[in-house]
């Protein structure tokens, strides 16, 4: 009897408004996209939206988007790691704190203003473009343009590298010098130590952070839209054009199919992320 009294029903009422709100304003739109992806104009079930989303120009845009995000992520991940290693090696002090703070600020820079500041830097009349031109190098005649995948990769580094730095500094600082000393006394050489301790400890957060960067780049719309005014057919840009009706009509639910594709890709990456971080959590927690 006493047990029954103690085992009260657990309250859930307090979570209802919050969960309901997210359900309505995120769940319903997302759900409708998923459903519409399989629906024809007349409302009957069809796979033709999915089929067109995966063929022709739209297939190409998925490839472009993936290419952009993968390249941007690989560069940012490596550059970010190199910077993080440099920062970790520094003595604690004003400079180190300033770098950390600056990383925080730059990681949060994005969207339209970022695009325009790169126009001022590497655009047709940008500062660097002009400086190089006065030095006899015309990057635009050399095939470069800021308004391209290459340009976006460069621009995205502006927020991706700092994000990587911020995420990698804690695990790098977590490397304990006693592990290395212990390994040495046990007979380990420098390369062995890297292989058996540094790499395994650093890899999971590194991969996790890279996945995070990837989704960031993959879903980004504002910077690309502002910079290229829709000229590069990335998936988000394509969806945008469909919404704005810039394309032939009666493709109403094609956008939903493209959206579903994005959700699936981001979702897969998210699952990979959870998997990787759970793995390392086993021994880091």
């Amino acid at each position: 009897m006493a047990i029954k009294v103690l085992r009260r029903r657990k309250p859930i009422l307090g979570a209802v408004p919050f969960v309901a709100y997210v359900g309505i304003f995120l769940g319903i739109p997302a759900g409708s996209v998923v459903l519409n992806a399989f629906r024809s104009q007349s409302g009957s079930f069809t796979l033709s939206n999915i089929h067109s989303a995966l063929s022709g120009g739209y297939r190409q845009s998925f490839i472009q988007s993936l290419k952009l995000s993968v390249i941007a992520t690989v560069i940012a991940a490596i550059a970010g790691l190199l910077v993080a290693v440099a920062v970790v090696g520094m003595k604690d002090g004003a400079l180190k704190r300033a770098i950390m703070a600056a990383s925080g600020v730059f990681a949060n820079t994005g969207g339209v203003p970022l695009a325009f500041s790169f126009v001022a830097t590497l655009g047709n009349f940008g500062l660097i473009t002009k400086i190089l031109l006065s030095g006899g190098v015309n990057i635009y005649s050399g095939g470069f343009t800021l308004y391209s995948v290459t340009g976006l990769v460069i621009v995205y580094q502006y927020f991706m590298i700092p994000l990587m730095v911020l995420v990698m500094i804690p695990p790098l600082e977590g490397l304990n010098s006693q592990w290395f000393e212990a390994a040495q006394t046990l007979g380990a050489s420098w390369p062995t130590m890297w292989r058996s301790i540094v790499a395994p400890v650093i890899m999971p957060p590194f991969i996790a952070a890279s996945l995070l960067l990837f989704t960031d780049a993959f879903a980004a719309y504002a910077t690309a839209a502002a910079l290229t005014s829709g000229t590069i057919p990335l998936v988000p840009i394509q969806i945008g054009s469909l919404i704005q009706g810039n394309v032939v009509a009666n493709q109403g639910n094609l956008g939903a199919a493209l959206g579903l594709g994005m959700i699936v890709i981001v979702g897969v990456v998210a699952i990979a992320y959870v998997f990787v971080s759970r793995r390392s959590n086993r021994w880091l927690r």
Partner: protein
Amino acid sequence: MATITTSLQGSLQGSSEKSVKAVHGRVLGVGRRYRTVVLVLTALFFLVPVVASLRYSVVGNNNSISFSSYGAIFSDPQFFSSLFTSFKIAIGTVAITVFLVTPTVVWARLRRPDLMSALESVALLPLIVPSVVVTLGILSAFASLPNIIMGSPVILALEYVVLALPYTFRSIDAGAGAIDIRTLVEASRSLGGGWIATLMRVIIPNLKSGILSAVFLSTAFVFGEFAVASLMSFSTFPVWLVQVGQDRASESVALSVVALLLTWGGLVAVSIAGLRSTRRRSAVIEDELFAFGEQL
């Protein structure tokens, strides 16, 4: 992506707290020269666009110095109307966020701490659905809603609450986590404080820093969000900014400079405030970082 930021931060903090001695350059095999080269190159990459923007905003495409683009901004009526639209949306977003998230966090920490990580995961869900896709969904799912909602920026405010959740939820929760609500409430109750008094005197003041940074984060989100607003054809500030950029480049760059500096200033202020008022400094900073990195 559910546990992303949480688990990542958790594990990272865990490991750095416990390690006795941090590794120095020697163990990572890097020296002073490496540091200098890497840091100088990095600094260049990040400072040049700022310098270039400042220069471009006063020089433009022709090489004469003038502050006319700044002047032009202020004389454009669209500047104020778009700013005002964004401002109204921000007020709505902030109000709903604070009144939706704060009670949830306080309730969960007091009554169901075990639910905390599930709620956090819910707050991170918007990261899985790109904002372009959300827009698509809004347009089809809510098409039949009355014009007062769908035809006005009200829908933006309602949606921004959700889209900014990954950042706002964590900053309010970090504020709550830093103060151990449970103990405070028990102490207050044991001293004879009623629930209302406890809420007003104990909980709210202690959550202030977390709420403030959530306020800033959602404001900055609203003033930076482009995808949803432009695709739904609302003239918010960033949407106007892009329109300006299409034919008056140096004006849009001038505006961008202003926008960047304001955001950076705000961020620095928030992290300084955060540093001062909570002991879990890294958690707070990281929250904000993660917060904004996602916002693109």
